[in-house]
């Protein structure tokens, strides 16, 4: 037998041969943990002078009780307040682990134990990176609680120390500081603006480089989004302008989580007055947003759609930019999306585009937005239908006569008539307004009678008549006015509408344009 064979044979008998290295380690670790747990339980029981057999089974084996917690916190306090670095690290880490628990971490207990001052002081110990890291993590989790918790963290002076940590050469420490600051910014406009005043933005932006790991960038993007978040007041314009170029960069990456949070940031920034929207669209980001709106991942398309929805609530120019970027090709798809909130947001965006000039309304028709609009009017959930009704009314208000005719021919009139039976008074009023606008258009063609007949055929007259008994006075009045104006059988004359009507400079349409159902 050759030497090699002998060696092979011996090695093949070795117990761990052929086993996955990682799995072996896992097994060793879990065995260790079991031993440790058992040892811990034993020492607890010893401390309490309890003999195992005298206890009911549950108590003997569950270490997760309140007095155990206070034991642990006592130990932590002792360790953290000592002058021994090792003890401090041990204590801080123990606190961090408690605070990282899945269910109900003891945030208040840790705060009440008076540990925050020490944690904050640990943040500046550049010669003790482990301590810095544990303290930053612990503070992150406390700041992740409610406003009171976050307030405690800030009150103990964490902010400047955390901002300094952003420059730490240890990436995981810097990242932890990013996270903690994100939680503080997320509390509301107050702390957000305090952070901005403390110059957090340049410090954060300095952390972005081509080598920055994806995980770090995810946290950073999220923190930036919180700095863009909240209104009353909106973030200072100067801060927004500082952050925008980096946000645009992040929006062109491929990591999905980064894209999602970057879109949220843009959606916050575009949620406001038209000059805020202007700042956003001037970056040229609109085409990318439309692209992201087209993604299948819900957590990306939702904020992208929200951002676009905000932009089309701006000026006609802003809206035109979205149209030029192809938004009308994506909206039909979203109006048919399986998730109702997506449909609703898409319908809202559509309603705002329909509130634009007739040139844009024409683009709606050309790009086939009418069929899906009618579909949601018929089948959408109520919130979506409400937005769709707004779209119809806006359409009838800003549209040309021909455009309104197209709308009626698409089935929208029938659909909104069917919605007259809802309980929501506002919706009813908007529908009545749409019908009124349709009559105004019909007048120009001399076809108000035809329209009245059509509405009657579709069951609309009946519904409007019933609305005259509606509890809401404005609804009653509006329904009544409509009946009076257009449905009174009394002296109906053949109305010849002059093509030389000077009021509107209206050119008589060709014979085709009628309210043919």
């Amino acid at each position, binding site marked *: 037998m050759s030497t090699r064979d002998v060696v092979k044979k011996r090695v093949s008998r070795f117990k761990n041969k052929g086993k996955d290295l990682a799995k072996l380690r896992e097994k060793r670790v879990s065995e260790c943990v079991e031993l440790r747990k058992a040892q811990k339980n034993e020492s607890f029981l010893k401390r309490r002078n309890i003999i195992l057999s005298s206890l009911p089974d549950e108590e003997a084996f569950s270490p997760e009780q309140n007095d155990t917690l206070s034991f642990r916190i006592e130990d932590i306090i002792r360790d953290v307040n000592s002058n021994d670095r090792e003890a401090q690290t041990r204590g801080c880490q123990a606190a961090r682990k408690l605070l990282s628990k899945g269910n109900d971490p003891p945030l208040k207990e840790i705060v009440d134990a008076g540990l925050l001052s020490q944690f904050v002081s640990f943040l500046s110990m550049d010669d003790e990176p482990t301590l810095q*890291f544990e303290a930053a993590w612990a503070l992150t989790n406390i700041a992740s609680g409610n406003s009171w918790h976050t307030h405690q963290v800030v009150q103990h002076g964490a902010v400047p120390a955390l901002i300094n940590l952003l420059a730490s050469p240890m990436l995981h420490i810097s990242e932890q500081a990013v996270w903690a600051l994100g939680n503080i910014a997320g509390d509301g406009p107050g702390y957000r603006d305090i952070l901005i005043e403390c110059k957090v933005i340049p410090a954060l932006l300095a952390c972005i480089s081509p080598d920055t790991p994806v995980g770090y960038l995810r946290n950073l993007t999220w923190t930036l989004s919180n700095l863009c978040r909240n209104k009353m007041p909106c973030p200072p314009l100067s801060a927004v302008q500082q952050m925008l170029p980096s946000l645009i960069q992040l929006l062109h990456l491929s990591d999905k989580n980064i894209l999602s949070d970057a879109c949220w940031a843009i959606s916050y920034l575009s949620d406001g007055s038209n000059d805020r929207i202007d700042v956003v669209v001037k970056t040229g980001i609109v085409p990318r947003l439309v692209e992201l709106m087209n993604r299948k991942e819900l957590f990306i398309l939702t904020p992208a759609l929200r951002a676009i929805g905000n932009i089309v609530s701006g000026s006609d120019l802003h809206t035109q930019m979205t149209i030029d970027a192809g938004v009308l090709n994506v909206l039909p798809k979203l109006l048919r999306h399986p998730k109702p909130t997506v449909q609703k947001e898409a319908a809202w965006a559509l309603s705002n585009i329909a509130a634009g000039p007739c040139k844009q309304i024409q683009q709606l028709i050309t790009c086939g937005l009418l069929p899906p609009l009618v579909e949601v009017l018929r089948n959408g959930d109520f919130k979506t239908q409400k937005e769709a009704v707004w779209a119809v009314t806006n359409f009838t208000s800003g549209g040309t006569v021909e455009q309104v005719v197209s709308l009626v021919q698409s089935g929208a009139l029938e659909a909104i008539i069917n919605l007259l039976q809802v309980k929501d008074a506002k919706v009813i009023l908007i529908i009545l307004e749409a019908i009124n606008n349709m009559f105004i258009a019909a007048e120009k063609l001399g076809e108000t009678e035809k329209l009245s007949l059509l509405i009657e055929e579709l069951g609309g007259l009946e519904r409007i008549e019933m609305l005259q008994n509606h509890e809401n006075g404005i609804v009653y009045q509006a329904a009544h006015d409509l009946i009076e104006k257009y449905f009174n059988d009394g002296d109906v004359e053949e109305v010849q509408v002059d093509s030389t009507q000077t009021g509107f400079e209206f050119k008589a349409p060709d014979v085709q344009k009628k309210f043919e159902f």
Partner: protein
Amino acid sequence: MSMSQTPEPSSDGATVTEEATITTPEKEKKADEVVEEEEEEEEYVVEKVLNRRVVKGKVEYLLKWKGFSNEDNTWEPEENLDCPDLIAEYLQKQKSANEGKRKAPGEADGDESKSKKKKEDQNEKLRGFARGLEPERIIGATDSTGELMFLMKWKHSDEADLVPAKEANVKCPQVVISFYEERLTWHSYPSEDEKKDDKN
């Protein structure tokens, strides 16, 4: 011609004027129809359009006359009027009461990103160097994946994972060297001298 949101001058190039005049209709085609209004030589100037109604299928506007009080407001058929911009202004006001752009209704129905996040464990989804941690030491090696991988223990983490040796060699060469050094073994073979000794 369309009813857009911003008042536009009429397409035939007529000038937009604040005031408008009413003159007795000259090109009235309905010669048999009695003109309701008095045919006066004077011109009255419309100050503002206040309201709109439809009577017997005809559109009429309530007008405020310049130089007259509100008590003298009258309803006039629209075909008699020559103040398109005032009418457009009135219609525009009616429109913006209910229509026009509507801003976001508020929070996006619970779909929004979390405002605060608790950190539960260390970078759960990322692996290897992407976790951004500092290498502590290599505790194992394997090539079962086809390329040589090191099992890396990271500082400040209990979770070790695999990294390609190629990457580790560049990013933390000293750690790699330590790993190899720790595992150097020397194999001794009998030398010529020892053989001679054995024979004795």
